[in-house]
């Protein structure tokens, strides 16, 4: 009988230890998320400057660039999947990978060969387990992405896009990442990044003649410098958004875990009390019946 109480005590203690851990992870995620959002905010001026410049070129000239033209010489397409390095973030990675699988399925249904690029350990292990070949992967700092890593990813992908078909060039680039909308809502997003579609008319046409832009040294060279940077900044932005989303998802998952642990502790405490009460009742009835037996004899 006393054994049952001991078992409940053990369970309560171990759940309390877990709860402490969940609480700590929730706090860590909460403190990092503000930093992640701050970084996303700090990267915004750069992205804005690039976008403005790209749309200025698009409005003031009509140069064709290799990054904006469709390729038809190959049916290989690249896919960049941005996942987390660690779990403990609820359905974060699962939701994203489901979206990625859907895209992969539809691309293959169109008769395209998908080349996978993966960021984040969860994605790598997901595809390795399913024996899906990964062209290249980046792991290590999914919750704190560096601009240099984003640059490396972008350069790898740009290289693949510029490579000739027989050397493994790809015709398109799709990016699957999680967009951070608010603390409670993050959604997986699929973006076709290459070939570029520059349509946004951020630079509004002024009254009368549009200002004549001077390009130094020339339109082609400026685009050459501009478009890869635009891609880099877009990819960096995707990584930052994914990082903030991951942390938000982790914080939420850990809060739920703490709540569940508290529920469990409450349940076990009830059971423990019941067991103790049952034991007391039994002891009393044993004493009473013993006394009765003695009195009767």
């Amino acid at each position: 009988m006393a054994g049952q109480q001991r078992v409940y005590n053990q369970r309560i203690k171990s759940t309390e230890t877990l709860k402490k851990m969940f609480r700590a992870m929730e706090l860590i995620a909460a403190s990092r998320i503000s930093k992640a959002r701050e970084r996303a905010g700090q990267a915004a001026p750069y992205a804005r400057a690039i976008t403005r410049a790209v749309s200025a070129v698009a409005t003031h000239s009509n140069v064709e660039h290799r990054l904006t033209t469709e390729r038809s010489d190959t049916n290989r397409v690249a896919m960049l999947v941005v996942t987390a390095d660690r779990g403990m973030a609820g359905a974060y990675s699962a939701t994203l990978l489901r979206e990625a699988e859907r895209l992969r399925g539809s691309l293959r249904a169109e008769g395209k060969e998908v080349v996978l690029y993966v960021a984040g350990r969860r994605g790598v292990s997901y595809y390795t387990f399913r024996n899906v070949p990964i062209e290249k992967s980046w792991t290590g700092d999914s919750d704190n992405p560096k601009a240099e890593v984003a640059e490396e990813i972008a350069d790898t992908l740009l290289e693949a896009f510029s490579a000739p078909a027989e050397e493994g060039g790809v015709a398109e680039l799709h990016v699957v990442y999680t967009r951070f909308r608010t603390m409670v809502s993050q959604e997986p997003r699929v973006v076709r990044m290459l070939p570029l579609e520059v349509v946004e008319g951020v630079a509004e046409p002024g009254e009368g003649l549009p200002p004549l832009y001077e390009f130094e040294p020339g339109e082609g060279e400026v685009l050459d410098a501009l478009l890869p940077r635009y891609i880099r900044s877009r990819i960096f932005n995707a990584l930052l958004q994914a990082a903030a989303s991951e942390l938000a998802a982790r914080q939420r998952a850990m809060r739920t875990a703490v709540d569940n642990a508290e529920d469990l502790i409450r349940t076990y405490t009830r059971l423990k009390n019941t067991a103790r009460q049952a034991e007391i009742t039994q002891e009393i009835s044993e004493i009473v019946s013993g006394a009765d037996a003695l009195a009767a004899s």
Partner: protein
Amino acid sequence: MALNVEVVSPARVLWSGEASMVSAPAADGSMGVLPGHQPVLAVLRNGVVQVTPVQGEAVEIEVDGGFFSVDSDQVTIVLDASAAAHVDSIG
């Protein structure tokens, strides 16, 4: 009249404020920008960007790649991640 200058790197804004003159190492040679300059989009090569603020001392930033744009007195200097790494000290 002053130029509205913003020097940005992928990670953050390195410098922003009003300036009376900006000179930058464009691909074809150094280029000075004063208020009222015509719109320009230029590629930067290695060199030093010099910003002369309306008040205070001139700021010099070493760059090795990026581009800069001028449009109705709005000057934006965009640096690469690698170029921005060693100018972290600028306020």
